[in-house]
């Protein structure tokens, strides 16, 4: 047993320390100073980020008996999660200060959840994945119900919790079976090699087990038919929490899913590729069609997020036994997830700001925003355009990269998937543009200037610039995704 590589877990250590400090300090803070937990968390996350940055270039690092590996993939996702953490913290400050929440506990839970996110991409072991997933989810259940006095919030939390626990149970059942059929393996690559040599009579059970494991993550990324919780939960949750769930939690789910499918279960691709094709199609279609009906922005974003998850699942359905294809598919999925994160966070940031005046966040509450808060409106328009995949935005490239892999490498299945995704994208334009339409063409009930917290404004501006910049020059993200690959070296 080799020594622990403390550098590899340094970010997690700093984050853990921050969590403890936040928890302790909170106890001593007077009620009107509870918000100070946020700057404290902020400093901690920034410190974590710095620590994370020191890892760049010194990868891969493996520790804890190979159950924890910090490679490019992990670093990329960890950097992403930390950035998301900073953003979520930024948009939380005012929201939680003004909303009468338990602030210290919130930041504690949020950071704990992010700790789970940080662990996820580095976990190369079923047990680690399970714990990471739970560490992401459990505080999530609690945060989702954080609007204590609001039945909507409670209800969202309960649904999230129940479906979450159920899917966890299914996943664990699957993991237990895999543990059994592989002869006691929990490491991902060990599983991969064991699974390919199974006696034929055990294959059916193994495949079912794989499916069960996928369910746990499909819930997390809100894939059909495991997505029903998402809209209710997002709507009921505090807006920054919804942002967290829609971006970090979902990305964590994908980080886990990517490792499972591209490493542990890669040998069974012929089995699960059609499943992912189905999941992808069903998820994007259901998400888009139901989104058309929405009149509340967070709910709209929830369904949009479901649809987007469908797009992100598409590259999974392109996997073959060809390493180059898999690498491309992997890169496309990762790029999409990253770009999705940027644009979705931006949208939620705008929603956070608007919720100060219109807590219900109906679409019609956005009317006239171009006059009451021009920056927010322009930003929101950009994010919506980007989510729709329309140039000139990064969302366009995100889609194009998936199309490219699908058509170039996916054969006839890939082309059909691309066409379905395309049709979906076109449909999605209808509802994505509903928001800008309100903001720009409709008169506001209250035409007075809507003041947005400085941090939120900054987030919106940066995300907006990033989205447009990504359109002109998407190379960094695409490249980062390319080198982060778990497959093909």
């Amino acid at each position: 047993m080799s020594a622990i590589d403390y550098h590899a877990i340094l970010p997690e250590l700093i984050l853990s320390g921050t969590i403890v400090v936040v928890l302790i300090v909170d106890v001593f803070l007077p009620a009107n100073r509870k918000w100070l937990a946020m700057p404290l968390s902020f400093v901690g996350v920034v410190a974590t980020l710095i620590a994370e940055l020191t890892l760049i270039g010194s990868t891969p690092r493996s520790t804890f008996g190979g159950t924890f590996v910090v490679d490019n993939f992990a670093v990329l996702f960890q950097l992403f999660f930390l950035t998301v953490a900073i953003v979520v913290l930024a948009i939380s400050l005012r929201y939680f200060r003004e909303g009468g929440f338990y602030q210290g506990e919130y930041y504690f839970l949020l950071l704990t959840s992010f700790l789970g996110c940080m662990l996820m991409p580095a976990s190369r072991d079923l047990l680690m994945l399970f714990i990471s997933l739970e560490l992401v989810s459990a505080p999530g259940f609690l945060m989702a119900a954080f609007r204590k006095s609001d039945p909507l919030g409670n209800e969202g939390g309960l649904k999230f919790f129940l479906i979450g626990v159920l899917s966890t149970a299914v996943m664990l059942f699957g993991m237990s079976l895999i543990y059994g059929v592989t002869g006691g393996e929990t490491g991902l690559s060990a599983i991969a090699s064991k699974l390919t040599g199974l006696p034929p009579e055990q294959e059916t059970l193994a495949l079912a087990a794989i499916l069960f494991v996928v369910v746990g993550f499909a819930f997390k990324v809100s894939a059909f038919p495991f997505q029903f919780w998402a809209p209710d939960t997002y709507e009921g949750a505090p807006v920054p929490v919804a942002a967290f769930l829609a971006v970090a939690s979902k990305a964590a789910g994908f980080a886990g899913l990517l490792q499972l499918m591209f490493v542990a279960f890669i040998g069974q691709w012929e089995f699960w590729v059609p499943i992912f094709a189905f999941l992808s199609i069903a998820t994007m279609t259901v998400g888009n069609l139901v989104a058309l009906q929405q009149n509340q922005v967070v709910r709209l974003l929830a369904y949009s997020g479901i649809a987007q998850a469908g797009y992100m699942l598409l590259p999974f359905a392109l996997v073959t036994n060809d390493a180059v294809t898999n690498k491309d598919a992997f890169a496309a999925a990762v790029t999409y997830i990253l770009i999705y994160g940027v644009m979705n966070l931006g949208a939620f940031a705008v929603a956070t700001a608007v919720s100060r005046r219109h807590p219900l966040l109906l679409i019609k509450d956005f009317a006239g925003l171009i006059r009451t808060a021009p920056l927010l409106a322009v930003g929101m328009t950009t994010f919506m355009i980007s989510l729709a995949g329309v140039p000139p935005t990064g969302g366009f490239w995100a889609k194009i990269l998936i199309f490219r892999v699908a058509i170039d490498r996916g054969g006839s299945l890939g082309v059909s998937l691309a066409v379905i995704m395309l049709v979906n994208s076109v449909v999605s334009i209808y509802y994505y543009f509903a928001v800008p339409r309100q903001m720009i063409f409709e008169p506001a009930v209250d035409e007075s200037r809507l003041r947005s917290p400085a941090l939120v404004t900054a987030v919106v501006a940066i995300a907006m610039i990033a989205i447009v910049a990504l359109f002109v020059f998407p190379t960094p993200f695409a490249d980062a995704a390319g080198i982060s690959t778990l497959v093909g070296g």
Partner: protein
Amino acid sequence: MVAETADAAASGIIRYTWVIALLPFISAALILFFGKRVPGKGSGFGILAVGAGFVMSLAVLWHFVQGGGIYASSVSWFSVGSFEIELGQYVDGLTAVMLVVVTAVSLCVHVYSLGYMHGDVRFTWFYVVLSLFTGAMLNVVIADNLIQLLVGWEIMGVCSYLLIGHWYEEKENSDAAIKAFLTTRVGDVPFMFGIFALIFATGFTTSNIHEISELVGGPGVSASLVSAAALLLFGGTIGKSAQFPLHVWLPDAMAGPTPVSALIHAATMVAAGVYLVGRMYQVFLAADPMVLQVVGIVGGITMFGAALLALVQFDIKKVLAYSTISQLAYMVILMSVGEAGRNAAFFHLFTHAFFKALLFLGAGSVIHAVHSNDMRDMGGLRRTMPVTFWTFVIGSAALAGLPPLAGFWSKDELLVAASEGHEVVFTLLLVAAVITAFYTTRMVLMTFFGELRSDAHPHESPASMTGPLVALAGATLAVGFLGAGPAGAVFFDWVFLEHPEAVELVPWVAGLSIAAAVLGVVVGWFVYRRYRDPDPTLEMGGFSRILVNKYYLDDVYLKGIVHPIRDTVSAGVYWFNQHVLDGVVNGAARVTRRAASAIGWFDRTVIDGAVNGAGQVTRGFSGVLRFIQTGNVQWYAVALFVGVIALTIVFVRIA
């Protein structure tokens, strides 16, 4: 890159014939931009330009009188692929004569309008268009290629439109203008296709008239193509020269100021159609003989139809208009009988320009005096307007074909040409001559004889108007002799460089011609020596009714074509656009929304529980209701497990 196919003797002014055509364009621009700021309100530019053009035209004609050769030159205008479009001049005797005619009549009209249009609100504008028209017409005359010709041709059409609608405050006038433009355009489109056919025949290299003329007779070009081209070209003639069935615009065009009628709708533009056939005569000759038969038949129908219509008109200008149509038809018929006929037609074109311009200007003078076009409001004007009267009589005599006036000689040429082997044509011409003489007499008698039938105070027109009348009367008296056999028929020498064949006075032909004219005049005299109300021409029962209604052609066009297209078909098309085409677009949107709402309904109602279905409407209540309905998360759970089972069954079994 001036290409010259010049006679060695070509010298001096003839090289610059194009300047004649250019001058009016320049004056049009000058009048447009500076007209209002100079004395004479710009008319001076026009008169100067056309006057200079007239003098130059005479000089060019002199070149041919002296026996000079043809001169042609061109510059490249632009090219499209292999197709070279040039700007060129082709100056032969015919060109020279036409130049003289156009500039002369235009000059007269320019001068005449000083008086006639005096005080008009758009006096300057009138001169702009007049100049522009003159330029366009001259361009048609000198053009050495069909594209250039087409350009001039269409600009003339627009000018005609603008001038007919000059007094656009009256809807009738603007209606007439539109009618004129559209009707001629109906002819112009086939004309354009005819040009295409000829350009195609050259392999899309050129539209040069003379190259085409040489080409069409040759073996490289299919006869059917040439025949089609000839027929299509003739479409242009039908439109521009107001031949049946497109003649309907010309009488209405009389809504324009009278000098315009004189210039455009009598002397020049309408003759361009005939000129075109003459210019492109090689094409017609190379075509199937059937084509020229068609030309003759169209001419025949027009000649008679128009002459008869002239009988029942009371508007003096409309009488002249129908007579113009009829006279143009004369020329068209002549075109159909071969080269000799073509020559005769040109001569008639030449003389007709003068006397018809004279008649129109005279009529204008009368109208100016009595402020009415209606001959029933006139009468006895020979006493108050002597100059107008005498010049008008000279013009009328020429129209009626009385010797020794221009009309007689040219008509005689027609008859001579027709007498040789074209008996039917010959007879038709004679009958038409009788009718022509009759309605001319009717017109003169109703206008100038008897007593004034309105309370106007007529007086002789100013010198600016009578001057051109006298000049044109003089020309009418003189030009006839140019083509008169006894006088040597020098016209044909000038125009065709060589004496094509002996143009001589054939006594029996001349006799018949005189007899026909005299017959018409005498009958007219007997019928109209006293003013009769109602007019006897209206008392011929159904025949009169048909004539008064212009054979119902206008009704057919208007009610059968124009109104249905303008009102019904267009509305139908637009309905189709809005409801069918746009309906598909909107329908697609609706279907998408429906599908969405169906799935949304499914999601809310079946999945999310019945209670939540109503939740979208009242979100607040929905929240409460959903809370009570905690169980509905179990539907999510059902979906989860059913999903797992289904996926397992479907995919694990497959694997």
